[in-house]
């Protein structure tokens, strides 16, 4: 190709939109690559120790927690999804959406609530002892263990599997299932031989979300004293101030995540999601006999009670007890602090997500695919990994700006960037870009390309086409992307703990530190506030789903 042609092609594709989205992609990739590249540097003595005595245990811990949670969440999620789509029983319509409510419960809050409720003086043992005269042998209901962590994570995360599988079954399974029934399959046989295999892509997608959340979890496992790679990163960072080894550990965690990705690909080989465009009629639920209906209703109630209603009720009670103590001007400041950080990060996310989604909409397939993979990479990357990567990048930025700081009169070797709120915001943006991007991508996919093309052939550039035509038409996506990302950020614990500036607290970190200090009742009010904010986002997810079905 001639030079002239190359410049022509460059000019044709290059514009501010592409530049901004490339910048966003680079910003996301940089810390992740930084973490991975640390594997190729020379390790220090500390690392030799960690590697020899601890690394295997950490990895085992992470795999056990993630693996067991995944299996249990899959069983619970798929089973309940099948129950509410295929059968008619009392309150089915209510459970259909109520079973996604546990998504509003941050797992670390469920963890300390359950720990306190099941303790010797907690409501469960106290009631048994005082009213029924039953003394529970010590250790019988002990949640402070791997078992407990898996229990909590399963209850909080199974709705991912439930939601995705239910949506799939409701919208596109009826033809297969009706046919299987005509051919004489029913009950358990129908479930295992037809329902599970056809819903496999949806189930795997849900389980993957559960696995990523479980691997990324810090609050639950650290509170219950379970050793995982995530908790180890914290210990090495805050206990030994050894960022190099923390980086290396983060790289190992990243390798686990990449390994899981490869397994997912292998599991889904040759299987595509079914196209949503085909006009499928919804699955018609069947009536259950009386006792079976009672059983179905009981199972759903039990799950909902354990995963949402009981802990929320308990937290509400504690909040009332302590509201006079916790609700003061500091608390208002804390809330404002939380909002400030989250709003700023969400704004940045939405801008980059919108620009990138727009570029992908009009770019070639392979470019769009690569770009959307990068934009969503943060979601699968555990919070601790992103935190270590961002920290390392900011420290090396500070180092290279050292002489500039000296010239500014700040003293050489000063840490300006890596002690600023900017570091935390960067972490948030990288981790939750996926949430914003997915919303904007969905918004743009529904927008006909010809609107933009019409605007351009009428002599208006990209800028006018975006602000005058596209923006008013993708408002809905913009709104849901904003809400979802904002709430995710407010709930986020590990990233905030690792990257916050000195003395900077959010509702999440305050609730967690109260809980760690055994001031459980004081933790209740910030927790309740977090749950209520999260409910807004769960409601948004629910409404989006509803609108898409119409």
């Amino acid at each position: 190709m001639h030079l002239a042609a190359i410049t022509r092609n460059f000019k044709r594709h290059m514009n501010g939109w592409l530049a901004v989205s490339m910048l966003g992609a680079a910003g996301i990739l940089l810390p992740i690559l930084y973490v991975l590249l640390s594997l190729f540097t020379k390790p220090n003595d500390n690392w030799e120790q960690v590697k020899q005595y601890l690394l295997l245990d950490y990895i085992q811990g992470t795999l056990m927690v993630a693996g067991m949670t995944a299996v249990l969440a899959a069983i619970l999620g798929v089973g309940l999804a099948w129950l509410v789509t295929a059968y008619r029983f009392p309150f089915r319509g209510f459970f259909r959406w109520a079973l996604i409510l546990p998504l509003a419960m941050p797992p670390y809050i469920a963890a300390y609530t359950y720990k306190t409720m099941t303790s010797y003086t907690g409501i469960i043992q106290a009631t048994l002892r005082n009213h029924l005269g039953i003394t529970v042998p010590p250790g019988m209901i002990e949640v402070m263990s791997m078992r407990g962590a898996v229990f909590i994570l399963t209850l909080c995360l199974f709705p991912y599997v439930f939601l995705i599988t239910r949506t799939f079954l409701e919208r596109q399974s009826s033809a297969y299932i009706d046919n299987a029934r005509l051919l004489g399959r029913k009950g358990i046989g129908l479930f295992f031989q037809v329902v599970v295999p056809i819903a496999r892509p949806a189930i795997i997608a849900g389980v993957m979300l559960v696995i990523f959340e479980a691997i990324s979890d810090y609050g639950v496992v650290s509170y219950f004293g379970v050793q995982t790679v995530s908790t180890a990163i914290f210990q090495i960072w805050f206990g030994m101030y050894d960022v190099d080894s923390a980086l290396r550990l983060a790289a190992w965690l990243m390798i686990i995540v990449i390994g899981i990705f490869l397994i997912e690909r292998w599991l889904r080989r040759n299987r595509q999601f079914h196209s949503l465009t085909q006009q499928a009629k919804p699955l018609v639920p069947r009536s259950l006999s009386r006792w079976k209906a009672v059983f179905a209703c009981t199972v759903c109630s039990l799950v909902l009670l354990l995963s949402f209603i009981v802990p929320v009720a308990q937290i509400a009670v504690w909040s009332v007890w302590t509201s006079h103590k916790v609700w003061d001007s500091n608390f208002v400041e804390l809330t404002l602090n939380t909002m400030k950080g989250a709003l700023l990060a969400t704004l940045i996310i939405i801008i980059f997500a919108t620009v990138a989604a727009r570029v992908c909409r009009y770019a070639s397939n392979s470019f769009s695919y690569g770009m959307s993979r990068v934009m969503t990479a943060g979601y699968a990357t555990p919070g601790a990994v992103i935190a270590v990567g961002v920290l390392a990048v900011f420290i090396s930025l500070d180092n290279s700006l050292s002489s500039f700081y000296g010239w500014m009169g700040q003293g050489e070797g000063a840490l300006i960037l890596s002690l600023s709120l900017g570091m935390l915001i960067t972490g948030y943006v990288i981790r939750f870009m996926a949430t914003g991007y997915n919303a904007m991508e969905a918004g743009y996919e529904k927008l006909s390309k010809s609107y933009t093309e019409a605007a351009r052939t009428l002599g208006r550039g990209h800028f006018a086409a975006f602000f005058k035509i596209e923006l008013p038409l993708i408002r809905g996506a913009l709104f849901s992307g904003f809400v979802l990302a904002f709430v995710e950020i407010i709930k986020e614990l590990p990233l905030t703990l690792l990257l916050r500036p000195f003395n900077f607290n959010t509702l999440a970190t305050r609730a967690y530190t109260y809980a760690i200090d055994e001031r459980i009742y004081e933790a209740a009010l910030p927790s309740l506030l977090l749950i209520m904010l999260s409910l807004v986002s769960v409601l948004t997810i629910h409404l989006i789903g509803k609108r898409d079905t119409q």
Partner: protein
Amino acid sequence: MNDVIMKDLTYRYSAKEAPVIDDYSLTIKQGEVVGIVGASGSGKSTLLRLIAGLEMPEQGSITIDNRVVVDSHTFIHAEDRGVGLVFQDYALFPHLTVAQNIVFGLNQLKRAERRERLVEMLDLVQLGGYAKRYPHELSGGQQQRVALARALAPKPSILLMDEPFSNLDADLKAGIRQELQDILHKAQITCLLVSHDQQDIEAICSRAVNMNTPVMV
């Protein structure tokens, strides 16, 4: 001579596929209404997109009003080509009224001139009373006329129409063909329109061209 000249155009969707447009040349004289027929998939719509600047040819050049808009070292963006395009689905902006749709491309004009041009366009397509309506409140034929008015408003050098009748009921077609012919005649515009229906082309165009063998009929 304000002609539109396409020379040796070649275009393919991806490097692996055979070209949909292969070494294609065509000249449209000023004021001519040319129709392109061809089976679906023969690259008719792509040709319009190449002229409008929404796609770039692999080879060849396009000259509009003595200005090269694309060749091996030039590419003028769609917004700077001065080409009007009526989309197959009309692509009327659903959140804007008929009037707002029509003046969308007139942002360079002064307010008074814009109003004047709007009235002129509404008259041309006989939609005087519909300025405040939204696209979804119009019939298919009315929507098409709004799309036409919107494309003509900025006075493009050439008007491109992609399958103008595909979205209309068959029994309305004859009437709308006649209307379109009148409008194009009144507007005195150079026009290239694409259809899979030979009859459409014969009814409206002064000349018909087959996509794959560009010979005059």
